[in-house]
Structures are given as structure tokens and as C-alpha cells.
């Protein structure tokens, strides 16, 4: 993965040298997209509930819905959008080389990335959570913590996995697994007491298997997920920001809330009417 990322970066660096030579003042992406008549959004296809293929082979998920929301704001038609499938490594190069207008692909906002692309406002806050079997030995996070090293947590294999779990449960035993299915299987078979991974993945899995599992009710390792656009086009960035902002607080709230419910299984309270929620 690391090597692949370097290759993408190198290919892109070679490209940007050439493009820098031909850089010129251009009209905003906003005008370009409007003239074209449809929006081009880059996203992935292998990560539910963010972006994945349905049984009928259609791209769907929360990231995909964000693309529809921006298309609705542009054309009054959520379907005037074309999705370009890209790997996670391709998120930044595809923006900087103009292959896509906008990328919505569970992109964690970091300072390093913000130097290469312009992030929109966040549309989700990701964190790590703990999922347990319903009616199991432990009631909630406090019970897990109190049990100390008696508790076994299954996680996806990762260099930081142990450290990540110990931030929340300092004494817990950590079992690492190669793939998501094995991690959930460990929980199902009782080899672990809880599974620790991204809350969105847990929420999706729980929504798929209603009543079987419960959330331990604790989240940590916060990270913001934002869409991103190419740098240097304030008009376009501002437009996408506005579209997302109004989806979370204004006219398109129902669309956003329906999508949130569909993929994460939770109802969102409507924004408070009266004084704008942003400044409370």
C-alpha cells in the first residue's frame, strides 16, 4: 500500500510539473460543471456503508448520497451525477489532475492532505467504537473497562491496533484478525467480548443484523470526513460547502437525514428552528 501510494505520488508529481507549465487563469469549476450538465464525483466501490455496489450492481452508500446532494443543488436533479470509481490512493491525484470535480470517499481531514487539496466542511465525524453481542456478559463500556484483562477485544490487524484499543481499555487483551469477517466471527463465536472498529462500519453491521448486537456506548479517535476539491477555486469550494451545509441544517436536511438513517440506522433530530444552530 505504502509503495503504491508513493508510485501514485510520483506519477502525479511528474504530471504536475507539466501542468504547472500550462497553468493559466480559468473560469470556475462551477461554471464548467453547469455547462457540462452533470457532476463528476470520484468515490470508491468497496467500503460499505460509504461506497459499495448493491446486489443489483448499483453504486450506493453515504458518500454516494453526498454526490447526489451536490447534484441536486446544482441541477435540481440528484441523478445528474457520474461516479468515477477510484482507489483510496487515487483520491488526491484524481482531483489535482482534474479527472473528477469532487471527491467524496470517507476522506479523513489531515493537515498534510489539506496542503494538496481543498477540504469542504465535514459531513460525518468518524470514531472507533465497541460492538458487543446483545445480552452478553458485559452491559456497557464501563463494565468492559472494569473487567480489566479478562476482556478480549477483536480488531483488524494493524500496527497501531493494540495501542488504539488500549486508549479506551488499558488492560484489555487484544486479538488481531486479518479481515473484517473474521473479526466479527470472533465476536459471534464468543472468542472475543467486543469488536473495535470504525463506528460507521459497526453501525452498518448492526443495521444489517437488527437486535443481534449492541454498541457499548463509547467512541474515541475522532476524525472528520470531508469531501475535497482541487485547490485554488474558491467559488467551487464555496458552492459545495453550501450544498453540504444546507443538507445538514437547511432545505436538504430531509435527504441527508434519510441517508443517515439508511446507512447508520439512526434518526437525526431536525435542526432547531429559530436562531441558527451553527452559533448556539
Amino acid at each position, binding site marked *: 500500500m505504502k509503495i*503504491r501510494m508513493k*508510485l*501514485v505520488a*510520483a*506519477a*502525479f508529481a*511528474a*504530471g*504536475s510539473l*507539466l*501542468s504547472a507549465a*500550462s497553468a493559466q487563469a480559468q473560469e470556475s469549476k462551477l461554471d464548467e460543471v453547469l455547462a457540462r450538465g452533470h457532476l463528476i464525483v470520484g468515490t470508491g*466501490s*468497496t*467500503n*460499505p456503508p460509504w461506497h*459499495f*455496489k448493491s*446486489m443489483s*450492481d448499483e453504486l450506493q452508500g453515504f458518500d454516494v448520497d453526498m454526490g447526489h446532494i451536490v447534484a441536486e443543488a446544482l441541477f435540481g436533479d440528484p441523478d445528474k451525477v457520474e461516479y*468515477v*470509481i*477510484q*482507489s483510496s*490512493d*487515487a483520491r488526491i*491525484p484524481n482531483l489535482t*489532475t*482534474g*479527472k473528477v470535480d469532487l471527491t467524496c470517499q470517507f476522506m479523513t481531514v489531515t493537515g498534510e492532505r489539506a496542503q494538496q487539496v481543498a477540504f469542504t466542511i465535514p459531513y460525518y465525524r468518524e470514531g472507533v467504537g465497541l460492538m458487543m453481542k446483545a445480552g452478553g456478559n458485559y452491559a456497557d463500556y464501563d463494565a468492559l473497562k472494569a473487567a480489566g484483562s479478562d476482556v478480549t477485544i477483536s480488531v483488524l490487524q494493524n500496527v497501531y491496533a493494540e495501542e488504539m484499543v488500549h486508549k479506551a481499555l488499558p488492560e484489555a487483551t487484544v486479538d488481531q484478525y486479518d*479481515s*473484517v*469477517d473474521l473479526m*466479527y466471527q470472533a465476536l459471534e463465536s464468543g472468542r472475543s467480548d467486543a469488536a473495535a472498529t470504525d463506528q460507521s462500519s459497526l453501525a452498518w453491521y448492526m443495521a444489517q443484523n437488527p437486535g443481534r448486537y449492541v454498541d457499548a456506548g463509547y467512541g474515541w479517535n475522532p476524525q472528520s470526513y470531508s469531501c475535497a476539491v482541487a485547490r485554488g477555486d474558491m467559488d467551487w469550494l464555496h458552492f459545495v460547502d453550501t450544498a453540504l451545509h444546507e443538507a445538514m441544517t437547511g432545505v436538504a436536511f430531509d435527504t441527508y437525514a434519510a441517508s443517515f438513517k439508511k446507512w447508520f440506522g439512526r434518526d437525526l433530530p431536525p435542526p432547531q428552528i429559530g436562531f441558527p444552530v451553527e452559533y448556539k
Partner: protein
Amino acid sequence: MDPIRFGEMLWLARMPILKGLGMTVSISALAIILGTLLGIFVGLSLTYGARPLRWLVRGYTDFIRGTPVLVLVLASYYVLSTVGLDLTAFQAGVLALTVFCSSHVGEILRGALQSIPKGQIEAAKAIGLTFRETFAYILGPQALRQALPAWVNTAAEMVKASTLLSIIGVSELLLRTQELISRTFMSLEFYFFAGLLYFTINYAIEHLGRYVERKTAVPS
């Protein structure tokens, strides 16, 4: 592993898998056909070309053969778009594989042609054949037999290299498989199945190669 549940999932996913298989076969077929045509030109230039042309083509083959296919794929997708050639992921992928294939076919053909004793060309000249005739009746048929096994090997390599196009978002068999795994969580089963399909394609290529070898063999 639960074979019944996997069978059910496989049946539900038959269309995406078939589409992915079709994509993999078309990418590979295009790359092999175009790469072979270009490779024949490369091989002829390397063996019989005038010195400047030979040097140019030598530089091309050495550069391409010394570059990982993944780098070629990324370069044709990203670098070319910055110089105004905006290819789709599919086109860029086929271009990269074609170029890669051509350099290998070129070298195979050069090796095959150079393995034919010089005396034969001299003898052909002595009986008054033009170069075109010499190639068509004497060098070509022998080189074909020499090159065939190595060419089949390159063709199979192309099928395997087509998996790299999943990185630039071409929905070939590997990406389709990963999409299915992300939804069903059955990684082992679906990867194994994809492996089986790749094996089947390459097994078919190998048999086709053997068939052509038999047909073109010198009767003894």
C-alpha cells in the same frame, strides 16, 4: 466456510462477476492483439532496422521492459492527461498493457529471428529471393515456431497484469471481486473463486497455444 451460503451469494452475484470476467477478457485480448502487432514492428526493427531506427526502438524496449507495469498504468492515466491526452481509465489501462506487451513480443521475435542461422539468408539471396520473400517463406515460419511458447507465456502475463487496472478504477474481475467481498464479508471464498477464473482463462490460452504449435509443427 459455508458452501450453501457461498453458492447462494455466488448465484446472486453472477452478473457482476460475468461483467468483470468480460472486462478482464476484453482488456487482455485488446492488449495482446495490439501489443503483438506493435511487437512485430518492434521485433523487425530490432533485427533488420537501419541503425537510427534500431537505436530508437532499443531505447523504447529497454525503457518499457525496465519499468513496472503498475508505473506504466499510473503514468498513462495521470501523466498523459496533463499533456492534453485525456484517456478514460479503460483506455489508459489498455494503452499501458499494450505498450508493455509490445516490448516483450518485440524481444521474443528478435530472439527467434536471430536464432536462425545467417547462412539461410545468404542462401536465399543466392537464389534471388527479395527480403520480403525471404521473410515470408524462410524466416517468418521458423521464427513463429520459435517464438510461440514464449508468446503464450507473455499472453498469460497480460491477463495477470490486467488486475493492476483495478487501481485506476477499471471494473475488471479483481475489483468486482473486492466489491462483492466488501458486501458479503466472504473474502476467502470469493478470492479463491476469482483465482479459479483467472486460472481458467490462462489455461485456455495455454491450450490454444499448444493447438497452434501442433498445427504449425514441422511434420516429422
